[in-house]
């Protein structure tokens, strides 16, 4: 590589980091937060004894998992305007990613809730708790511990998937890379640089997962 390529990589580093800080990371965090709330609701619907509730959740999850994220994103940003619903790039991206995380994380949370032994529900009822209180104080804290590793996977996938938002004009890490690449013609160097940055972000997240697991492990035998 020539000196000018190095210079280009160095010069583009800040725009890309800026894109990560103002685009990739907030997009991932907000979509994940909204997606988790949605996922918890869907998981509880799936577990509900009311069949119509669980059917709605089942269909939702099936649709989300059975269609490409890129298609979901395009339907919202490019499709909805033909129905008169025009949504800006940023909210479009957040809506699409939240819907997607909701579908995937719902199954994780459902499995985690089911993994808590039945005796825990019974002990909670025994001390006089209602169903809702047993869920929030006894079952969900234990389910949270179980769901940290799979939800971390979901989150890490989401961070990388936010690069798709560049296709609906959201300025984030990858779109910055694309713009510099298109302008300079140095595709290989810049896309590798973008890959490296994504990798660094995911390394940080993985270590965060480790810390979180350790914290939640304090009541588990080793």
């Amino acid at each position: 590589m020539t000196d000018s390529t190095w210079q280009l990589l160095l010069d583009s580093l800040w725009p890309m980091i800026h894109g990560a800080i103002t685009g990739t990371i907030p997009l991932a965090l907000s979509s994940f937060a909204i997606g988790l709330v949605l996922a918890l609701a869907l998981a509880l619907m799936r577990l509900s004894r009311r069949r119509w509730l669980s059917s709605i959740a089942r269909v939702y999850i099936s649709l989300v998992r059975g269609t490409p994220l890129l298609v979901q994103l395009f339907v919202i940003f490019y499709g909805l305007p033909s129905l008169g619903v025009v949504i800006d790039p940023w909210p479009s991206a957040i809506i699409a990613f939240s819907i997607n995380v909701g579908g995937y994380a719902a199954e994780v949370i459902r499995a985690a809730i089911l993994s808590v032994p039945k005796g825990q529900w019974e002990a909670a009822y025994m001390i006089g708790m209602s169903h809702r209180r047993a869920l929030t104080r006894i079952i969900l804290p234990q389910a949270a511990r179980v769901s940290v590793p799979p939800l971390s996977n979901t989150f890490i996938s989401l961070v990388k998937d936010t690069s798709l938002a560049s296709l609906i004009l959201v300025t984030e890490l990858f779109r910055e890379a694309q713009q510099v690449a298109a302008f300079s013609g140095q595709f290989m160097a810049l896309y590798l640089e973008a890959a490296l940055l994504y990798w660094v972000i995911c390394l940080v997240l993985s270590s965060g997962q480790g810390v979180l697991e350790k914290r939640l492990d304090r009541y588990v035998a080793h």
Partner: protein
Amino acid sequence: MSPTDQKLLTVRGLQKSFGANQVLTSVDLTVARGTVLALIGPSGSGKTTVLRCLNGLEIADGGTISIVGADDSRHAPVTIDFAAAHGTRAGVPKKALTNLRDQSAMVFQHYNLFPHKTVLENVMEGPVVVQRRDRAEVEAEALALLERVGLSDKRDSYPFELSGGQQQRVGIVRALALRPTLLLFDEPTSALDPELVGDVLRLIKELAAEGWTMVIVTHELEFAREVATEVAFVDGGTIVEHGDPKEMLRNPKHERTRQFLHRLLFPF
């Protein structure tokens, strides 16, 4: 009528099926205040189901359960007619079910402590969060109870750090802290290593001596003979024989009771 022979619990014609399997055909039972009733019987006889119905963990299909409580609102008298509820949880008035549950506290075979809470938090959860009693007062009471079972130094430990016997003693303290009128034990020593059984049985014996009303599902015949004031033999979903433990365990009237005791005493 003296307070000691006042009926605390009355069960009439209790029935329960799981699908096509009728576990309880018809159970009648009365428990006076201060009674320690041991339920014995072969596995699958329905004795644990009886206990679970008393706490509302299972909803019976038919029959009635009445508990004469104390004077306070938490332990108000309650009668539930399960035939009228058509055997569904939704059919039972919510208030009555809560009331039934509040009367009793259960000690489980597998302890069922909350693994994400410390020993002290396990004991305080019900009184503070559900019963909304004063935290400081509950804590003092919980610590006194833990002290009494020799576990005050474990107050901040998590259940996984305790032996089975210690966990079960915490389970008993958790039940006592709820201030129930009736204590229910579901095979409290069946999951314990043999050398840890003694501590738990000794504690239950002490509670019996203090006058707690208890229903204990157990396989420990010696314990039943020594601690229980009444014993009931359950088989085929009904109470086959009911009487004084010393008399009944030595000289059972019913053939099925005799066979069961024989099998327990001479397993091979």
